[in-house]
């Protein structure tokens, strides 16, 4: 909201009624400084230090290193007693040395706190400890209790002036009455953060807004927040109207670019966690506590207790954010992946506390599938190192590539979610591998990208199961290279459901590597059917006779093997189709692409290979019950588009998911596919567009590409 943070060395105000979290926000600011290795000071005038500490257990590790100056006036004695200057008597101490009990007024002397004494104290303390962050809690108390004989407004002004001369980034909290009254000090600060609390009917709404920030752009909207164990948790995705105080549905500004899909395939929290975990594993951190939280979350998600699962996830995220701080400052120099991971973690820790949206959690089946996947990635300790990197890259690459071409693929869902965050991670790990292929892949993808949006819808659902698939998918984009690497990786982890389909495609791709060059187009056609699997296959058949092969596929997946090759021939056009499709066709296009990859040139090889893989995959699917359900969902969504036209037959979905590989097993798989089919109907909406466009576009497009 602040466009990167506060401008350093200036005084700022946090204004709000009591109970809105001003103190907490100020403490978060100090703790962030401690994490940066800075020195931070809290001057407290309201809450005794011991209470501050016990009120914020969630901030404990950093808070204990924050210095605190107890500027609360003593109990008055209404008799003559020597007054001492506070600056001479007390000094700042770290929170860890604050006693449990409240400070007692000494028997013989009483300390009066005046603003002049405070200024003097601040000056000496800043010189002595080189504080770079100071919070004064609160300016209001200062005005009420420490400015005897001063003009309150003038006093505040002098004080603010004094602070800016100190050249320290300072936050002053200001108690505001419930009704908004302009007070003079507000005009003096360089920036003002406002906290609101409104009673709407019986509902309490808390919102935060940046009222002013000199020297920087900032978000002028109000966003709701809540106060959690580690401080304020702001939901940037939602805006609250200043007039009506109602929630405005924000245009998908926040996630749109990231996901590239209308759906929110991956909840940001899971995404953050997934990245964090892979980095932590890379670095060799102790992730046991996080795993414990995840396991608890999974357990409650299985029981359908989404709320509890969400809490656990929140904790896991919070843990993830604190872990990097405890790592030894090692490997700082090298450019190794470890160093990159460390840097990413530092960046996340920096931004995480402020801008992180609240936990959004997917439907229970998807959630369980994802959690199960994450845990399965984590669990093999020995493999962890190997696995961790793989998944991470996969995710990241997926997004990038995926967006373009992959997106269509079932795993895509993961990709979109990942896309936002993944960007960073992908760069480091995968970048190298995919890089070569990417050039090719991207080319194809770009066209598809535009289309993907439509396609994504189907994919998102896939995402749920996708995580496993992601792994496989990740590789797919890179096609050949990825294939080689991923294959092994995929197999072990991928056991998970989605991977199968993806794997199959990826495998083909690997082989296809050659395809990539020329087949790109051709592949796309053939691949599309395969990838699109359920949707693509069914769709083509139903829609246009033009795609005889596709029709064939749709009819009998088993046969596809033969048809696929035939299709490829026709397919050549698909790539262009994809491009042309951009909007409506996009759906078709992606499908085509997918098909291309898997089936196209390599198909035969793939076919040989695939069968094995599919088999493995198949067993895997059954093995993990949870993933399976998720798959259906995914499949549903994807399948929906394709099936919708066809009436979403079981065959359709089946074909779509694991077309090639399944051939043998296909019928058996049908059962799962059926599951998918059920969901499919709901998805119908998306499908119509896709179907319609595909029918038309494919023919047209194909011709162009063929040339």
């Amino acid at each position, binding site marked *: 909201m602040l466009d990167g943070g506060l401008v350093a060395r200036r005084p700022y105000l946090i204004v709000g009624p*009591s*109970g*809105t979290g001003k103190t907490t926000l100020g403490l978060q600011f100090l703790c962030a400084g401690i994490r940066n290795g800075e020195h931070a000071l809290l001057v407290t005038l*309201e*809450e*005794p230090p011991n*209470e501050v*500490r*016990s*009120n*914020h*257990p*969630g901030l404990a590790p950093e808070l204990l290193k924050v210095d605190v100056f107890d500027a*609360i*006036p*003593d*109990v*008055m004695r*209404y008799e003559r007693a020597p007054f001492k200057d506070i600056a001479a008597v007390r000094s700042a101490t770290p929170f860890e040395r604050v006693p449990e*009990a*409240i*400070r*007692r*007024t000494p028997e013989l002397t009483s300390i009066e706190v005046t603003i002049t004494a405070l200024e003097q104290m601040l000056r000496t303390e800043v010189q002595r400890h080189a504080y770079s962050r100071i919070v004064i809690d*609160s300016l*209001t*108390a200062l005005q*009420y*209790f420490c*400015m*005897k*004989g001063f003009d309150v407004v003038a006093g505040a002004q002098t004080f603010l002036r004094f602070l800016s001369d100190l050249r320290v980034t300072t936050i002053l909290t200001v*108690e*505001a*009455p*419930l*009704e908004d*009254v302009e007070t003079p000090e507000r005009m003096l600060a360089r920036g003002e953060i406002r906290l609101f609390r409104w009673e709407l009917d*019986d509902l*309490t709404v808390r919102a935060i807004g940046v009222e002013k920030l000199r020297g920087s752009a900032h978000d002028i909207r109000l966003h709701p927040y*809540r*106060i*959690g*164990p580690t401080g304020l948790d702001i939901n940037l995705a939602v805006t609250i109207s200043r007039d009506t105080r109602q929630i405005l549905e924000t245009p998908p500004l926040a996630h749109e670019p990231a996901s590239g899909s209308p759906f929110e395939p991956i909840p940001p929290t899971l995404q953050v966690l997934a990245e964090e975990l892979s980095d932590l594993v890379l670095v060799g951190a102790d992730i046991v506590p996080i795993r414990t939280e995840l396991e608890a979350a999974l357990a409650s998600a299985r029981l359908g207790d989404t*709320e509890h699962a969400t*809490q656990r996830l*929140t904790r896991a995220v919070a843990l993830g954010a604190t872990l990097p701080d405890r790592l030894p400052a090692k490997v700082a120099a090298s450019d190794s992946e470890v160093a990159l991971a460390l840097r990413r973690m530092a960046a996340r820790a920096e931004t995480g506390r402020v801008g992180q949206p609240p936990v959004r959690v997917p439907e229970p089946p998807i959630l369980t599938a994802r959690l199960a996947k994450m845990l399965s990635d984590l669990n093999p300790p020995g493999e962890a190192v190997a696995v961790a990197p793989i998944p991470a890259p996969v995710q990241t690459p997926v997004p990038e590539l995926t967006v373009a071409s992959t997106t269509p693929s079932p795993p895509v869902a993961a990709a979109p979610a990942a896309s936002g965050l993944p960007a960073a991670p992908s760069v480091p790990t995968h970048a190298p591998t995919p890089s070569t292929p990417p050039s090719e892949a991207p080319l194809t993808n770009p066209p598809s990208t535009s289309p993907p949006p439509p396609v994504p819808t189907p994919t998102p659902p896939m995402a749920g199961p996708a995580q496993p698939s992601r792994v496989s998918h990740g590789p797919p984009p890179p096609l050949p290279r990825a294939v080689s690497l991923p294959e092994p990786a995929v197999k072990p982890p991928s056991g998970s459901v989605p991977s199968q389909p993806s794997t199959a495609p990826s495998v083909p791709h690997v082989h296809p590597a050659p395809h990539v060059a020329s087949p790109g187009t051709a592949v796309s056609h053939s691949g599309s059917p395969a990838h699109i699997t359920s949707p693509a296959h069914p769709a083509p058949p139903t829609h246009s006779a033009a795609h005889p092969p596709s029709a064939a596929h749709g009819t009998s997946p088993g046969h596809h093997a033969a048809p696929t090759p035939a299709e490829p021939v026709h397919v050549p056009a698909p790539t262009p189709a994809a491009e042309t499709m951009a909007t409506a066709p996009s759906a078709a296009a992606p499908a085509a692409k997918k098909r291309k990859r898997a089936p196209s040139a390599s198909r035969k090889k793939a076919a040989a290979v695939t069968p094995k893989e599919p088999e493995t995959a198949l067993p895997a699917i059954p093995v993990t019950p949870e993933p399976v359900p998720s798959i259906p969902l995914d499949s549903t969504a994807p399948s929906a588009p394709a099936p919708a036209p066809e009436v979403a037959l079981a065959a359709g979905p089946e074909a779509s998911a694991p077309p090639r590989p399944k051939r043998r097993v296909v019928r058996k798989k049908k059962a799962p596919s059926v599951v998918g089919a059920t969901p499919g109907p709901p998805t119908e909406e998306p499908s119509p567009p896709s179907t319609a466009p595909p029918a038309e576009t494919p023919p047209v497009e194909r011709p162009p590409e063929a040339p």
Partner: protein
Amino acid sequence: MNLAEDGGGERVATGIPGLDRMLGGGLRKGRPYLVTGGSGSGKSLLGLTFLLEGLRLGEEVLLVAVDEPPNEIMENVHAFGWDLSAVKTLDANPGTRAIKRQAAVQEIRTMTDLKTMRDISQETKRAADAEDIAIQGIQLKLRQQMGGVQFTRVVVDSMTSIRRFAVKSSVDPQAERTEIQSLLRFLSESNVTALVTATPSDPGVLTPEEILTRGEILLTRKWIGDRSLRQVKIVRMRGCAHDPERRPFVIGPQGFVVG
């Protein structure tokens, strides 16, 4: 509530199970809290329940009565069958400040003789001085008393009246604020869990007790047709994961019951 976890700390039961649930176990020991609500909203009753719970647990409790003469309070709660005779009361009505056993409550002399205009002007001046002493006096009395008896629960009913009756506008607002600050600080240092009642202030004005208390419980009453609906809400509560909702309550034969 789920999110925040307590950093430990002893909890003090309010004597109202429903309210304790909303507070996640009770008030935190040794801190001052604010109870706000219009007149007739149940503030005093909440305070008395809090004190009686203390008595039940064998604690030393004190009522600083400013609003109502103690004898009336006694009569008022008779309907609930409560026995306040063991509640120590500081009758802080202007002019009569003394700590007495409730049983020995005396009628309060409210009126003074007629005075000449000149005397009145002097009188008001003196009154202001005396009021100034009111908060101060409470603190001093408490300090004396603390020497012998360690109170653990104190109810000040009400801060609004103290300010209205005792601290006239002629008095420097800074002095008033510091005195309230000092009183609350004193209670806190004495490890007393205190409830301070107040009527809601002008929404544009911030009172010192709003700043200094560690939590606020709001009692509201609204009319639906002929029936009044009473609701209790925890506006803020530092260091307590609390229930953010409004909850209905009734004042019935059992006293103060939160649904």
